[in-house]
């Protein structure tokens, strides 16, 4: 990274104005930048979550404004060096504050709601009273949905690796000059709506649909029924259909990161291994596969996480006995209006996924994702 411009204070590039009589804010512009950003973020979160309301909220918003103006003032009054040190914070400010207010703050309101109680069955405003009962309900009443969500998402993730890895491999190593074209082909299907694609699968998997008819024609329905993929001669409204839908819809999220990591591999490494009498298989096992693991790691996260919270596939391809936790959250939140229970379930889902990600990155972790 020779291109990165040093902005640490004290670098030889110190040709700032008036080096002799600088005040503290000129010597530590980075502290001002980061401080202003964090202060604004925290205050916005406090206002957004309703921790501060009324006059306090207005005061907080005023402080945010002052922090931003101060940042600009220091940049204008300071020399070139100060400006350079503050520039990144200025660039980050609007986007990061957006995320603070509309990503972080909602997580706090979600937590707060999950510990609230609805005064009556039909009430809308829940009251915050440290009600852990929602979590007990989430675990006892929706245990099956949690298990199914992670089971289906897990199987779908394994299937996306099984389908996506060979495809990415062939494109990366045998695509030649058509590589970009082929990877474009992988992306194109995903420019049509997710929902319509799932409806398309519903139609194809229906009893008279293309896929089911084809399976009947080649006489494999009996076999597929025996191994539990089909239910009699039906394919739609089975767990297999839901898992198939999840696999299909998240496949590009597996293919693309694997492709990116395979593409980076220097082909000469494989040639060198073969010159040293390594077989194709062991060259793959010892060189290509380990080097592609960061892609598999990123792909697993990008597939497993959205799949475990998904409810669209089960809605269109499953039956009432295949509901996943996403269905339950959606139903409790938007249909039953039981926001506290839905919030508790959302929070548990996120907590389990976070634990999973932490354990998983401990074993396979790379910093390629960030």
């Amino acid at each position, binding site marked *: 990274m020779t*291109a*990165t*411009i*040093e*902005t640490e204070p004290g670098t030889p590039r110190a040709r700032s104005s008036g080096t002799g009589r600088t005040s503290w804010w000129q010597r530590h512009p980075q502290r001002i930048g980061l401080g202003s*950003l964090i202060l604004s973020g925290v205050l916005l979160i406090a206002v*957004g*979550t309703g921790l501060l309301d009324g006059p306090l909220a207005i005061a907080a918003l005023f402080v945010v404004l002052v922090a931003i103006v101060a940042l600009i003032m220091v940049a204008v009054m300071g020399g070139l060096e100060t400006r350079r*040190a503050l*520039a*990144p*914070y200025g660039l*980050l400010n609007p*986007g*990061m504050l957006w*995320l603070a207010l509309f*990503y972080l703050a*909602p997580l706090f*309101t979600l937590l*707060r*709601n999950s510990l609230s109680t609805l005064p009556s069955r039909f009430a*809308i405003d829940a009251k915050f009273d440290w009600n852990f009962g929602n979590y007990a309900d989430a675990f006892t009443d929706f245990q099956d949905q949690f298990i199914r969500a992670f089971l289906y998402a897990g199987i779908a993730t394994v299937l996306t690796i099984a*389908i*996506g890895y060979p*495809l990415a491999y*062939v494109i990366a*190593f045998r695509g030649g000059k058509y590589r970009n074209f082929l990877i474009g*082909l992988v*992306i*194109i*299907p*995903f*420019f*049509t*709506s*997710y929902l319509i*694609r799932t*409806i*398309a*699968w519903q*139609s*194809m998997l229906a009893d008279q649909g293309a*896929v089911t008819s084809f399976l009947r024609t080649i006489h494999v329905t009996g076999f597929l029924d025996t191994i539990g993929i089909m239910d009699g001669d039906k394919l739609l409204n089975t767990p297999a259909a839901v898992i198939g839908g999840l696999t299909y819809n998240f496949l590009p999220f597996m293919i693309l990161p694997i492709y990116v990591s395979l593409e980076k591999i220097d082909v000469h490494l*494989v040639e060198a291994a073969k010159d040293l009498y390594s*077989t*194709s298989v062991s060259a793959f096992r010892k060189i290509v596969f380990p080097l592609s693991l960061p892609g598999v790691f990123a792909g697993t996260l990008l597939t497993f*996480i959205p799949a*475990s*919270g*998904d409810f669209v596939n089960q809605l269109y391809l499953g039956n009432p006995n295949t509901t996943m936790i*996403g269905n339950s959250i*959606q139903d409790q*939140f*938007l249909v039953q209006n039981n926001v506290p229970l839905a919030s508790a379930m*959302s*929070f548990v889902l996120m907590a389990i*996924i976070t634990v999973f*990600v932490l354990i998983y990155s401990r074993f396979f972790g790379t910093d390629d*994702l*960030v």
Partner: protein
Amino acid sequence: MSEPSSRRGTVARWGLNGFAAVALFYLFMPILWIVIYSFNKPVGKFNFIWQEFTLDNWGDPFKDEALTDALWESLKIAGISTLIATVLGTMIAIALARYKFAGVGLLAFMLVLPLTTPEIVIGSSLATLFLGQDVDRGFRTVIIAHVMFQVSFVALTVRARARGFDFGLEQAAQDLGASPMRTFWKITFPLLLPGILAAALLAFALSIDDFIITLFNAGSVSTFPLYINASFKVSFSPQVNVLATTILIFSVALLGAGMLWGVYRDKRTKAI
């Protein structure tokens, strides 16, 4: 890559290629269904069983008025949110790629977090924020939600592009007397433009496609996916297929144009 020459190797090689071809076909199966059924003349309100070939649906793509309105709403939302997210995300990307500064790890982590949060958690949590503040959910809240998840995608896409960018060029321009503003618009921006456009296209597609987060924050607003879902119990018109195919054709044309432009630029740069 040198391939083994034995017969078993050849079989394995073509087996793998065949598998890849089947996988590619699998990716296109629903697309084929959508395109083929846009030429169907359904009996009743559901376009699910093949009857006969017709061009009527393509002759009257906006027949389903509520569907057309929903698509228009989606395009408006996608346009506005993509514009905001592209500006915010590009600023973040430049900051991360160009400068070394305190807190960079924390801020980069903050950027990845929304991508590792299931949509249903993002959607429901944002809805609790709006509920708590008594904000009516509608057009504006959908835009807020879309910008939120687009920013991370844009920032990471542009940053990937900016990583290979030689910021020494900026220094050179300034040494030759260009003002910082002029340097940005004449040097930095044009060189980052392909990455920015790719990111904007991605963000636009994500917005039009989004169902789960939008469902929680739309109130009475109906977007393209929301309308299809809501009306699915009573109708599924062939116009859905026609409009979906049109969106697909547009996206592919944009993608193709982008690729050709990239090839052209590379050739020109090499010529110089």
